[in-house]
């Protein structure tokens, strides 16, 4: 299965996956309009139509969809979202889900408004004053000048400072980990993923994992894990050839 040719039929887009990526990269398709979950579902459904697990396709898909998610996440959490940084990862995940649900509701409400417009399109009201309405002499009640001072003071209230604490939520570039792992593999033929990234934040670990998938896709490494949640072991591909055990044969 070739992931780039995966046919998608989404609200905002219809066509192959690679065209979608091109449009996103050229800024011709707004990621906010894009339902990433629908892409994942389309891929999973295609995957389960087949009996065998296509690991190459899964790896490629994970890299591509992660990149999309990363772009979308950056868009969804601009600097204003500083308060998220103070949350525990589980709370942050819950907050993410809540916001996603909130946005979906608003999107549906927008759809409702659009339908309403179509139904109500043939009702015309006058907008603005009547042509021959009586003219009003502008009369104003006395005002307290303190209100003017208060209005100006309110405009001088600085907006909340953008906290730098949420930098942890930012995504380090994948390439940073590609280089890091390549240099580790120059010194050692194998390493243990958890040991290498144990000190890092969750986000960094996730990006580091993406780097692993990318390296494997390029054929530079092989990945080995004895059981779910067991340590992930990484070995250089030239070493892998010496061993008989590879992920592909597993």
């Amino acid at each position, binding site marked *: 299965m070739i992931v780039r040719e995966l046919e998608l039929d989404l609200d905002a887009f219809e066509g192959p996956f690679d065209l979608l990526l091109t449009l996103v990269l050229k800024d011709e398709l707004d990621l906010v309009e894009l339902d990433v979950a629908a892409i994942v*579902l389309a891929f999973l459904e295609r995957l389960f139509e087949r009996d065998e697990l296509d690991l190459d396709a899964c790896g490629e898909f994970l890299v591509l969809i992660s990149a999309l998610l990363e772009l979308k996440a950056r868009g969804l959490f601009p600097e204003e979202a500083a308060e998220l940084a103070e949350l525990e990862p589980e709370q942050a995940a819950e907050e993410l889900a809540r916001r996603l649900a909130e946005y979906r509701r608003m999107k549906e409400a927008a759809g409702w408004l659009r339908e309403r417009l179509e139904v109500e399109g043939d009702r015309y*009201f*006058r907008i603005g004053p009547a042509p021959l309405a009586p003219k009003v002499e502008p009369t104003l009640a006395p005002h307290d000048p303190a209100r003017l001072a208060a209005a100006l003071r309110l*405009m001088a209230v600085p907006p909340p400072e953008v906290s730098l604490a949420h930098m942890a939520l930012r995504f380090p570039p994948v390439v940073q980990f590609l280089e890091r792992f390549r240099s580790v593999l120059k010194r050692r033929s194998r390493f243990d993923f958890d040991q290498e990234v144990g000190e890092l934040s969750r986000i960094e670990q996730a990006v580091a994992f993406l780097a692993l998938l990318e390296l494997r896709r390029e054929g530079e490494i092989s990945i080995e894990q004895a059981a779910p949640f067991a340590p992930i072991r990484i070995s250089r591909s030239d070493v892998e050839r010496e061993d008989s055990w590879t992920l592909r044969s597993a």
Partner: protein
Amino acid sequence: MDAPLRLIASNPLDQLAKTVEALLVVASAPLTAQDLAEAAADDPERVEAALGLVGERYREGRSGIVLEHVAGGWAFRASREAAEACARLIEKPAQRNLSQAALETLAIVAYLGPCTRPDVTRIRGVAADSAVASLLERGLISEAGRDEEAGGAIRYRTTPLFERVFGLESLSELPRLDDLGAGVDEIRDRLHAVAEKRTA
């Protein structure tokens, strides 16, 4: 009050209905029965009765002018039969070519209003500046003071024009938020279905 009693004697319901017609034809926004009663210096119950007469006279199909209850009040509009002619007359009604971004922003302001631009940005995930500007220009939203807690950001709310354009008697006619977001459940269900297949 004495005055209304005196007026009732000299002002039969038909006369009051004419006053109501006059008030509605010069008003630039829907008027409540209370507004009409105050302007007509008559009592709200009699105004309601007069509105019944006016509504009978200006009902769809009977006249080119139709009385409608909208945006919490009463207003005259053009009959639906004349919609095409009105479209030719009024070049840019507030509702033409509303972008998806503008509609989403409008939905957020309608449900959460008054709210600020950062509020809209937080939910939509992209800056809402141009959507807000276009809604302001169309008169579908208006400023509603500043949010002192959010560093003096300007807050926005929907206008009576919004209700008129969307044919709502009030914001309470919007669908309940609990009933929206069905897509969220659907995705969850589909994910569960896939997961079950997998373990089967």
